[in-house]
């Protein structure tokens, strides 16, 4: 109850037009010229001091991209993107080498403060001793496109975990990057992934060696800052045999008039007995209430359960962006591997969400679970699009899917587009979907007991998404719960 009250208080403070994280940091940035050409690709590669093979890889992707056309099948509608009118690279001016947070541009630090990143790391740097055994988070902060601070490096190093910006990994661990990059999402995968392959600026690289349980939650905060800068992160996470890692990703962005393009690629690879848990809270700027501006989020996320008994779990809370086009998927290649997808997608105002997952059962006795909760309010459109498929050899494949949609108001739309394909008799698939509105009876019950209409809706919605919230790491769950109520503000009454 206390949490709900807090949520409601918070909602009151915030006007729908005043995006809480809508501020802009004024720091000089190092930009590539506007537009996309081979020169842009070379510029980015040179900026990153990349080896020749990496440049070649990018150029190949770029040439491929030129032959492709933008996909139109998703239920999203947006003005044509002029790819020549974007900046493809911007980096904060480097200040010598960064050894500690003190050396970071104070404005950037201020930004993190406003973002509400508690930066436990700050405490660590200031010598605050934390009790033994308390959960810790390592933050690799991507500020615009360059990772400016990586903390907890030492402890991770002791465990043998490699956690660094991917640009560094390309230089320091070329053998690992070469071996895995583009093996889950090939450069030719889709329009946006190919674009990303050509111009990705930075992102995170994680390698957890065999038998290692990563000692802390790894976390990256993405933030789109420079005006007109598309951001193209590339994340690559590898859990070697028997390894475990939990990765958190959270996003906010400043208020903007012009649309910003975001086309990230995330690749996850698990070997035998390994597990990756990937959680996202996405709260990018959704645009003004009349539907102008906001982030275009075209993301390709895919995990490959390459080894036997491996597991990949995606959890996402999607509340921001004007357009969301995102299908975190699992390729269940190894026998007995498991894929999970837990999603809360909330759309309000003029937001358009087309999100879902793909569970591709290839190995024997593979299992997957999909829990998707879509909430549409305002004049938004919210689509779940998913694929569950069992191939000939996927004996004993098992899937359970539940996708529920909640409609708030009569001008929004909630859609479900599942594809269920079974090519093996022992595959057992169950799928259920419901669409409804919040029951008047339930609201009446709550209001009668003294809750306001808005509090009641907050309560019901939080109950509706509980199954998914429980999957989030504690740090995120609290934040996410608040976010959900904030996102729905203005949708009732």
């Amino acid at each position, binding site marked *: 109850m206390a949490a709900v009250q807090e949520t409601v208080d918070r909602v009151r403070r915030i006007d729908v037009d005043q995006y809480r994280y809508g501020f802009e940091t004024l720091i000089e940035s190092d930009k590539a010229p506007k537009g996309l050409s081979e020169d842009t690709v070379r510029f980015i590669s040179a900026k990153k001091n990349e080896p020749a093979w990496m440049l070649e890889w990018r150029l190949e992707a770029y040439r491929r991209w030129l032959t492709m056309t933008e996909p139109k099948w998703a239920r999203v509608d947006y003005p044509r993107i002029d790819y020549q009118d974007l900046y493809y690279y911007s980096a904060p001016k480097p200040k010598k080498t960064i050894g500690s947070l003190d050396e970071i541009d104070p404005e950037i630090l201020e930004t993190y403060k406003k973002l509400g990143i508690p930066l436990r790391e700050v405490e660590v740097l200031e010598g605050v001793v934390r009790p033994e055994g308390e959960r810790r988070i390592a933050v690799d902060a991507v500020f615009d496109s360059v990772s400016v601070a990586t903390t907890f490096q030492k402890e991770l190093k002791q465990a043998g975990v490699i956690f660094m910006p991917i640009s560094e990994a390309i230089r320091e661990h070329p053998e690992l990057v070469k071996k895995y990059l583009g093996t889950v999402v090939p450069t030719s995968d889709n329009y946006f992934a190919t674009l990303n392959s050509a111009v990705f600026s930075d992102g995170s690289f994680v390698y957890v060696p065999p038998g290692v349980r990563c000692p802390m939650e790894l976390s990256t905060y993405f933030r789109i800052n420079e005006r007109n800068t598309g951001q193209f992160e590339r994340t690559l996470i590898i859990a070697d045999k028997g390894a475990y890692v939990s990765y958190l990703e959270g996003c906010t962005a400043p208020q903007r008039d012009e649309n910003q393009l975001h086309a990230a690629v995330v690749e996850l690879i698990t070997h035998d007995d390994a597990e990756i848990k990937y959680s996202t809270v996405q709260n990018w700027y959704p645009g003004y209430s009349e539907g102008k501006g906001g982030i275009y989020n075209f993301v390709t996320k895919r995990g490959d359960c390459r080894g036997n008994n491996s597991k990949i779990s995606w959890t996402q809370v999607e509340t921001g962006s004007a357009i969301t086009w995102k299908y975190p998927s699992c390729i269940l290649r190894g026998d007995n591997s498991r894929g999970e997808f837990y999603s809360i997608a909330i759309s309000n105002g003029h937001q358009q969400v087309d999100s879902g997952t793909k569970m591709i059962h290839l190995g024997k006795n593979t299992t997957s679970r999909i829990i998707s909760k879509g909430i549409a309010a305002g004049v938004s459109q919210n689509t779940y699009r998913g694929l569950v498929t069992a191939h000939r050899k996927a004996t004993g494949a098992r899937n359970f899917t539940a996708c529920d949609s909640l409609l708030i108001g009569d001008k929004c739309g909630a859609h479900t587009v*599942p594809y269920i394909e079974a090519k093996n008799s022992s595959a057992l698939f169950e799928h259920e979907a419901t669409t409804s509105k919040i029951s008047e009876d339930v609201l009446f019950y709550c209001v009668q007991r003294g809750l306001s209409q808005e509090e009641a809706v907050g309560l019901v919605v939080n109950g509706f998404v509980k199954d998914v919230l429980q999957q989030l790491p504690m740090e995120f769950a609290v934040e996410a719960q608040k976010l959900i109520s904030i996102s729905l503000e203005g949708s009732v009454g």
Partner: protein
Amino acid sequence: MNVVLAKTETAHAKSDIKSDILAVARDRLPGTGKVADLRRQALEAHERLGLPHRRIEDWKYTDLRVLMREVLPLAGAPDAAALKRAAAALKLHAIAGARRVVLVDGVFAPSLSETSDLGKDIGIRTLHEVLEAGDAALQAQLFSPDNSDAMVALNSAMMTDGIVIEVADNAVVPRPLHIVHIASGAAPAAMFTRSLIRIGRHASATLVESYIGAEDAKAYQVHDSLIVAIGDGARLDHVRLIEDSREAFNISSAVVTLGANAHFNTFGMNTGSLVSRYQAVIVVAGEGSRVETNGVNLLNGRQHADTTLFLDHAVPNCSSNEIFRAVLDDRGHSVFQGRIIVRPKAQKTAAKMMTRALLLSDEAEADNKPELEIFADDVTCGHGATTGALDDSLLFYLRARGLPEKEAQALLILAFVGEAIESIANDALRELASLAAQRWLAARS
């Protein structure tokens, strides 16, 4: 769409129909002037689109460029020998008590049909007649299906005959109307038919459509379509039985419109044909109406059956229920695509869809795509889909009680499809469908 899925091959020749097919068949196609213009437009639309392939979302699982390759030439008009073969085939599929109307090789066969003593409540004409000399409004209605689908366009261009049934207001038609499509010839050929049924206000009728082949008929193509208009307060019970030759193709479409407080109950059962596709668009245009669409696919060998339903809820206070079952043996491939759209004004809609597939073989394939598009908030909509094998514990229970394995399986399968069959309102027809399922099961062992 994905790495592990092979990239689509679309190299197949687009021109699947000889552009002079219309010229060749011209003297067989009824209608002049406006009708001929509409045919020309439809043919142009079809030629522009070519045969549907997997890159066309609605045909994702039924790639006719691979499965059918080409449209066969128009079947010749049946001669006396053809009619004799058709009559023999008809004997096995007659429905007691029904009023029979027979199309042999796509042409109305008066000698096999029962069109006398119709009374004033019901009018039956042939499509040929209506296109040659019918009123313009009716002709326009016959061309109402949208040319955006390549196979509907082909059907509009090539339709040679069919049955046009009009049921008067307040009429209760006691005998089911049975339209039988028979392919008579051994030569591979295509037949193109279109039928229409109009149910007047507060009237009710039962329509059965059967698709069968004579003994020698093997690799023929059936291209059929049905236009249904149900008036306010009226009711239509509709049953489709596809028992075509196991080498045949059956590509059928339906466009159904319901008035206010109307009731449409439809059931389809598919045990025949090599490749079949049934695509129905059901528009609930009047308040307080009810739709039940149910179906069963029983497939084995290399059979492929695709049921694609599009249910359009445009007005408030309507309900719809879809129950679909597929039983797949050998390399059978069943496709169910059900799309329900609830438009912004259609408040208080209750729409349900349940699709289940039973895989009896490791080479069988079941593809389900139950789609919901909801634009109104005060609705209760849901869909469910399951795919799996027979429940081992149930089988064990029956076997423990002394049933041989095949019998135990048959019992469970019959119960599985029974849920859909039970929805047929007419007792005799329900029994007929149930017997067809039992025959299929008996032939299995």
